[in-house]
């Protein structure tokens, strides 16, 4: 799944994304195979792959372009600057809005599928899997209860 995300990115970004995705999926597959409490997810590997790929993409791409937006916003706020010049690239207000549009589009996509920012930004794979499991239970049961964040792994 991560290959879709990597295909348009340069090697120095896509390689670590690819490695991180596969490292995390290895851990996830191991847990699902060996922990009975996670067997509920054994038929959902495709969905989990998508969620993990979205999470890695967030960390490696979205969070960083968001960093550029925040930096540019600070510069525009504290000065008369009309752009931030990074080499030959000019990050103008218009360009900043273009980046924001992509971030918002990403955000809408994950929200449409009930994925919270908290879940997507979870860096510990075990925690991520626990949250995915809780999400599945919540969606299947239609429960209004919040997932138990303190559930022991």
């Amino acid at each position, binding site marked *: 799944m991560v290959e879709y995300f990597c295909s348009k990115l340069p090697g120095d970004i896509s390689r670590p994304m690819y490695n991180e995705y596969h490292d995390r999926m290895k851990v996830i597959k191991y847990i699902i195979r060996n922990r009975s409490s996670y067997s509920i997810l054994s038929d959902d590997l495709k969905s989990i792959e998508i969620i993990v790929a979205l999470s890695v993409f967030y960390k490696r791409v979205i969070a960083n372009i968001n960093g550029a937006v925040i930096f540019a916003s600070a510069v525009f706020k504290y000065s008369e600057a009309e*752009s931030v010049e990074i*080499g030959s690239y*000019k990050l103008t207000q218009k360009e900043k809005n273009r980046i924001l549009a992509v971030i918002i589009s990403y955000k809408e*996509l994950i929200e449409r599928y009930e994925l919270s920012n908290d879940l997507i930004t979870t*860096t510990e794979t075990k925690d991520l899997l626990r949250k995915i499991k809780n999400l599945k239970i919540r969606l299947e049961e239609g429960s209004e209860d919040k997932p138990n964040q303190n559930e022991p792994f």
Partner: protein
Amino acid sequence: MNPFKDVEKFEKEINSFLRKHKTFLAEQGKRISDYFEMSCYNRIVDDYKYQGFDVIVKNLKTNKFKYKLSPSGYPENFSYFEIRRKVTLEDSTKYQSFEIHHNLTIQSGHQQDIYLTPDISVVNTNAIISDYNHYSVERSAKKFCYVKNADLQTFCEVKNFNPFPELLYNFIGVYNELKAKAIDQDLHNQEPLQIAPSLMISGKENEHTKRIKKSLESRYKINIFFDLFERKILSNSKQCRILSIEPSILDFLIADITNLSEGTYDLPF
């Protein structure tokens, strides 16, 4: 939509998102490492803001903030942030100020004629020196710009990599050259609190690099930050010590950011 039941639709939507933004991703992808450095720079600036400093953008070039991407180029051709705050001393009010630069060359703490260039430096104001004799070329206008080691307050190295042992140990070399001597001799033990020399890494640690971090942070007065991607890192209480180091050993370097406003690092959405 249920990501477990509507999985095919989910996949299609992702493909559609990626297709729609493929030109953008191809364009912006090559700048991701610069963006990561910018966001780390932003965190440093925000930490001083939290301490009560005002932030002033300096050296705009025709209304452009020129970001210094590499060690090459004269500092006067690039923009930077100055931080400034009022300090009242015995009935008189003075300003305390520092400059935060990217890729500024700093003199070694051990030998006066050797230098290195950390990614982010916090230095005293107006501390940049132009040395016209450095290159030993007659009648050349070429100059060498640097900051004396005594004017360096703190520095950060920023790496958009996954952490690996040699990367962490390399940072110790930079720390020893620039700051270890000054910190060991308590030469910077007054207000304001400075962020300890820090290695900021985007990638996720494994068990081995976690052990190395713990070991190095216990031996040296440094921070090593992993997985430094998003706002939760700074607003998460467990991680709040990231801009401090062992409080008992080095309280003068601790920046208490536990009450840092969450919105500071909030995503724009």
